[in-house]
């Protein structure tokens, strides 16, 4: 099957819905799924090297006066809280001044901003997601060609720290430590893409056929239940189908990945290690970032989400009774310094961790450049100034060149435009067939052309 | 935590009435905070107290291996000059001096001795006889599972290794005046106290490993005999700052010292005491301005560290300790350390241990015998104990009796 997925999909969708553009992702349950997704891989890649996408999240924002660059365009100035990204600044674009519009809905602390950025809409109830998160949409589009449609990671040891949702009840749980990441990717089922001899393992055939039998129960079951139960069971069957496809991939020789090197298994985290301690968190995150880089280089996934700290930023310093989040609300602005020193400390540390991730991707040589050159990462927080849970001027950054489709190293000011312009841009760059995105007043048709090549 | 202790420092009256009420209600156990008149502590380390000078403030004694090396001819010395030849040097020393090791199962074993079983002294001699040990020589070592004949099992056979061993003759040492006299061989304490009896330090004071382990900053953070700690329980306390009459019990436990997530000893853990009466002692004491001082009492403190299991016998021991509001205790234990238990400690170190710690067993043994000053045996006219001072640190704990063997309600 050589027809590029993007146009085939748009053909189908436009035909089916009379030309109206689709603004939500449909579950892959339907006919859009190829045999084994290789067409997806090729189309979105556009060439030999696949393009990857990822999100990086840190909680509790920043202090605008100390984070926002003043000059725009290339070679932007680096304010104090961004000092940590200096070694990788040339790879990073800063997108400032983009707002989440609440349209009169409640500002749910540490929820609205995050959901606004990732789903393009806000809701009044913390449990409600009005659209899937953009990483899910991108994974639906390009993730089918990989062993893992997407990879959800968190650095805090907690598998519930995830902002990847298909809907309000289906959060994609994360892999929260480096050793579990290793076991999942490079463990027993890992197929080294560069191993010369390849023999399909009959166990995968057996497992696939068993799963297929499971899938066949679908019709009978769905007729027995009501509408909302049907949705839930359908989601389950989609997951079954995805596993089948994954097993099918195991039966094929994986495409060669020149940069792939199986890393050493990392040590498991010592029992009792407090991952809310920022040093421990940064260390676990760095290890996970390096493992993630190799995961991407070995084509085990094309889409990832890394949550450095949850939106209520549970980071702490040992011995300090007040952690990051509490400090954002409770710490007085120091009269001499003019800002909250503890908050400043943690915000700066988060930016250093972001630089660790970017560096990890930039350290892997791939093709004529690096892994980062073939990746696009969107970093963002849930708010700007956390003291008041401000969802205007949400800090966002892009890293990587997305295979040459994106210009890195720029500072773009949003001037109050909705954050969905960023979400739309990244989806288009990654080949999702969408020309508008966002709900209510955040609905937009304008990507950020300054970063597009 | 300090604020909890405050409750007992200042509100003794209230606490006492809690105890009364507790006594009245049936089937009720300890109140929150347990009995206010009992304060127990688990000791994380008991070490030979050093007066505080740096370890290399004065020339240190050579260990057995160094003495042996110096006895070699220049040509031979050249063969073993570099540190990578150290092991070969030790082996040459063992060969030339005639050390022997025989482990049942690996060496000729008399009938009836099972490899790996604990050996009695008689069995060690039997094994020795079968494996070429000198007549009548051979002792159980390595946790009593191996028979050995070395300069540490029989120091008296190797006088050459005792050559040049110097005792410490500095003026200052830790401790107290145990015999009431002020003589020429006494020290002055760090605070100027006269007549301090600490002959042990005379023997140890120039041995590198003892000088170093006396470094307080390190000693306070180290755990020794962690699996077999000592518990000190102070009871009948009406006032933790000043009380003319309190009871002090010293116990042993086989519960390992519990550490908190930071690696320090956790406070308020319950330790089951060993019922063996030999490991229990009781004495009286008084507290003045927060410092406890006890009457003399004979102690037998368990000490199990790595391969060493050498209980410390200390006669007429006195405990002087500062009890702090933060739940910690720091103090000294001063008395007459029995020579038999010190010899046992040194012997269990093994020749290998002595070699790696730069110790000459014959030198140390001779020095101890020479400077010992306590409990003269009327028959042999030799002293059997030596004045010593040890320091300790600990944290608040609970000493509990072993469970009754009756059916418990359980949950």
């Amino acid at each position, binding site marked *: 099957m050589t027809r590029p997925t993007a146009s085939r999909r748009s053909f189908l969708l436009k035909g089916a*819905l009379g030309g109206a553009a689709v603004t939500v992702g449909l579950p892959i349950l339907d006919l859009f799924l190829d045999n084994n997704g290789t067409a997806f891989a090729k189309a979105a890649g556009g060439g030999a090297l696949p393009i990857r996408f990822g999100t990086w999240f840190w909680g509790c924002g920043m202090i605008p006066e100390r984070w926002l660059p003043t000059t725009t365009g290339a070679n932007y100035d680096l304010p104090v809280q961004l000092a940590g990204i200096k070694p990788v600044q040339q790879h990073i674009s800063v997108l400032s001044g983009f707002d989440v519009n609440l349209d009169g809905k409640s500002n749910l602390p540490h929820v609205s901003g995050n959901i606004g950025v990732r789903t393009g809409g806000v809701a009044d109830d913390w449990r409600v997601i009005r659209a899937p998160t953009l990483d899910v949409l991108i994974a639906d589009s390009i993730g089918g060609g990989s062993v893992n449609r997407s990879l959800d990671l968190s650095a805090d040891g907690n598998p519930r720290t995830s902002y990847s949702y298909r809907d309000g009840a289906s959060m994609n*749980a994360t892999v929260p430590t480096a050793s579990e990441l290793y076991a999942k990717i490079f463990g027993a089922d890992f197929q080294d893409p560069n191993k010369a001899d390849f023999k399909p393992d009959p166990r995968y055939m057996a497992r696939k056929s068993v799963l297929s039998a499971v899938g066949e129960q679908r019709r009978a079951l769905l007729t027995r239940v009501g509408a909302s139960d049907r949705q839930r069971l359908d989601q389950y069957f989609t*997951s079954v189908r995805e*596993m089948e496809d994954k097993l099918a991939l195991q039966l094929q020789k994986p495409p060669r990945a020149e940069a792939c090197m199986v890393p050493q298994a990392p040590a498991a985290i010592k029992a009792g290690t407090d991952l*809310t301690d920022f040093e421990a968190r940064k260390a676990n995150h760095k290890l996970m970032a390096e493992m993630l880089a190799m995961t991407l280089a070995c084509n085990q996934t094309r889409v990832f989400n890394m949550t450095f700290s949850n939106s209520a930023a549970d980071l702490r310093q040992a011995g300090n009774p007040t952690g990051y989040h509490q400090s954002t609300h409770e710490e007085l602005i120091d009269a001499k310094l003019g800002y909250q020193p503890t908050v400043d400390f943690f915000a700066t540390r988060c930016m250093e961790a972001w630089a660790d991730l970017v560096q990890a991707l930039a350290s892997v040589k791939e093709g004529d450049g690096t892994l980062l050159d073939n990746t696009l990462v969107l970093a963002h927080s849930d708010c700007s100034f956390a003291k008041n849970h401000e969802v205007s001027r949400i800090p966002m950054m892009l890293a990587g060149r997305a295979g040459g489709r994106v210009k890195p190293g720029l500072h773009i000011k949003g001037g109050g435009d909705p954050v969905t312009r960023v979400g739309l841009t990244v989806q288009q760059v990654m080949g999702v067939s969408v020309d508008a995105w966002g709900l209510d007043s955040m609905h937009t048709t304008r990507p950020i052309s300054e970063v597009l090549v | 935590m300090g604020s909890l202790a405050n409750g007992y420092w200042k509100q003794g009256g209230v606490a006492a009435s809690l105890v009364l009420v507790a006594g009245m209600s049936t089937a009720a156990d300890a*109140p929150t905070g347990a009995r206010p008149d009992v304060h127990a502590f688990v000791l994380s380390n008991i070490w030979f107290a050093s007066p505080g000078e740096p370890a290399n403030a004065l020339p240190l004694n050579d260990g057995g291996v160094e003495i042996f090396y110096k006895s070699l001819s220049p040509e031979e010395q050249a063969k073993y000059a570099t540190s990578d030849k150290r092991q070969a040097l030790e082996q040459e020393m063992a060969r030339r001096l005639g050390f022997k090791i025989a482990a049942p199962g690996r060496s000729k074993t008399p009938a009836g001795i099972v490899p790996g079983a604990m050996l009695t002294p008689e069995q060690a001699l039997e094994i020795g006889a079968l494996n070429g040990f000198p007549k009548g020589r051979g002792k159980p070592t390595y946790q009593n599972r191996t028979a050995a004949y070395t300069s540490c099992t029989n120091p008296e056979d190797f006088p050459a290794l005792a050559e040049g061993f110097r005792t410490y003759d500095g003026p200052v040492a830790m401790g107290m005046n145990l015999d009431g006299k002020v003589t020429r061989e006494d020290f002055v304490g760090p605070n100027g106290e006269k007549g301090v009896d600490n002959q042990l330090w005379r023997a140890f004071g120039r041995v590198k490993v003892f000088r170093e382990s006396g470094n307080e900053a390190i000693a306070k953070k180290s755990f020794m005999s962690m699996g077999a700690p000592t518990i000190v329980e102070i009871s009948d306390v009406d006032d933790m700052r000043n009380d003319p009459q309190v009871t002090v019990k010293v116990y042993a436990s086989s519960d390992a010292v519990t550490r908190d997530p*930071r690696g320090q000893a956790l406070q308020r853990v319950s330790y089951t005491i060993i019922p063996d009466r030999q490991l229990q002692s009781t004495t009286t004491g008084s507290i003045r301005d927060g410092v406890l001082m006890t009457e003399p009492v004979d102690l037998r403190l368990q000490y199990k560290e790595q391969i060493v299991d050498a209980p410390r016998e200390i006669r007429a021991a006195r405990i002087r300790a500062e009890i702090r509001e933060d739940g910690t205790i720091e103090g000294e234990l001063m008395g007459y350390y029995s020579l038999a238990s010190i010899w046992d400690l040194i012997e269990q170190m093994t020749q290998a241990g002595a070699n790696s710690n730069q110790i000459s067993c014959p030198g140390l043994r001779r020095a101890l015998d020479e400077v010992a000053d306590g409990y003269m045996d009327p028959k042999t006219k030799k002293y059997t104990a030596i004045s010593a001072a040890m320091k300790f640190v600990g944290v608040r704990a*609970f000493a509990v009796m072993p*469970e009754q063997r009756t059916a418990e*309600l359980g949950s």
Partner: protein
Amino acid sequence: MKLKSRLVAGSGLLLSAVLAMTAVVGFDRATAREPEADAPSNVRRLTEAQYRSTIADVFGPDIKVVGRFEPDLRVEGLLAVGTTAVSITPAGLEHYDAIAHGIAAQVTDANHREKLVGCAPNAQDVDGAQCAKSFFARVGPRLYRRALAPAEIRALASAAVSSAKLVGTFDGGLSTVLAGMMTSPEFLFRIDAPGKGGAQVDGYSKASRLSYFLWNTAPDEALLKAAANGALDTPEGLAKEVDRMMASPRLTDGVRAFFADFLRLDDMATLTKDTLLYPAFSPAVAEAAREQTLRTIVDHVVTRDGDYRDLFTSRRFAMTKALGPIYDIPVSKSGWYIHEFPENDPRSGLLTQASLLALHSHPGRTSPTLRGVGTLEILLCQKTPPPPPDVNFSVVQDVNNPTLKTTRERLQAHLTNEQCATCHRATDPIGLALEQFDGAGTFRTTERGDRIDVSGKFERQDFNGAAELGKILRQSPRVSSCLVSSVWRYANGRDPGPADAADVEAMKRRFTDDGYRVTALMRTIALDPEFYAYSRPQPSPEPKRQASQDKKGRNS
């Protein structure tokens, strides 16, 4: 090529199917996947605890269940209610699959196969089909919680035989199919089937509801038999099984499961405290504190069949050595025992259990607000609205303030600022009563040198300290009413609708008459015909086809 032409030809069908899909998906409406109010759900995902106990019952407790579970979702305060809201994500299914393969491998290994499989291919049964049939006939009904038709058993056996050919060993084939069963929706979900007449669920569904409610595990052989022969469809038959299950020691498992969910004790698994400020708190201590609370409750409501309200004043605490440092008491017994604090001791009642005290605190200090909100929300079923997003704390919270030493003093602004006071007046006094217990649950009388004031008012009654507050809560009708509605919601896995209101009210009255005994309440629910009502699904369009089902042989 085939795919394309079929698509073009079927685009009309595709259009309607896609439109139907869009309507069903409903992303443009602001609702989550909550069970629709007019049609309670019939599909409940097994919780992690239920999965584990089911496997232990079917294959024995020494089978290790290893892996990560898809997190359970807490809806309206209960994981049990979340079971009707969740599905299974792709990553989650991968985990279930891995866990299932681990279990299946153990079932067929040398240590277990004799007992659990008990047969092998031999001269009379060369490919092992008979053996496989007998195995699935035995194990299938236990895993799927219903009878299996002979055709189903035959299909499973033949799948095992073909898998065996692929992987090379009979055991390999058997375990592959067994793993598939544990990945099947009939295992992972409890799906109700209608009984005769359609008003109630069928016998097997009743058995599942009853068993997961009273014992938190799958129905045992006896209960499955009662379902098969229709006994559960008669009041006498149902009562007999309920009596049997309530008299069993396994009732403890069900009671523990309810209270662990109700009190949200699963959060203790991820609870961390600052190690410098609370060195006595560790993950092992957190686990012990959780266990303590559950054992304390079981001792009271099961072993002694006591009055639920007394949990708020009881000084009987399950105790073990690991908790000695937190409670500052000597512990001489090994294992668990019941420790009774003396009369007038500040430790008194559920609110002074270390688990709840530590859960509703920050990692480095206490939080009267969190404790107050927790008490109100969990134990009184009273929701507190979230704080406004633009709260400005710049005047209020400075821990090192030399004049505002205690937490009470630092929280003054909660009460003087009218915007804050509306909520904080209700929440803070409860938490302030508990301030003598620090963030790890240890008792103290002063904070930074100042005596802690634990006086306050609740529902217009004065109290001084946690013990007196416990007495007031004991008398509050809201406390017992909240328990009844929580047990109802737990058992049914959903919130009550308008049709259930009368039923729930009757249960509250009955609970009072029965002396507030939790076991009596559980029996009432287990015998209530409404508990077994079938929720008729609305008629639906034909489910959209999946590509795989239209092309034979594509996936083999």
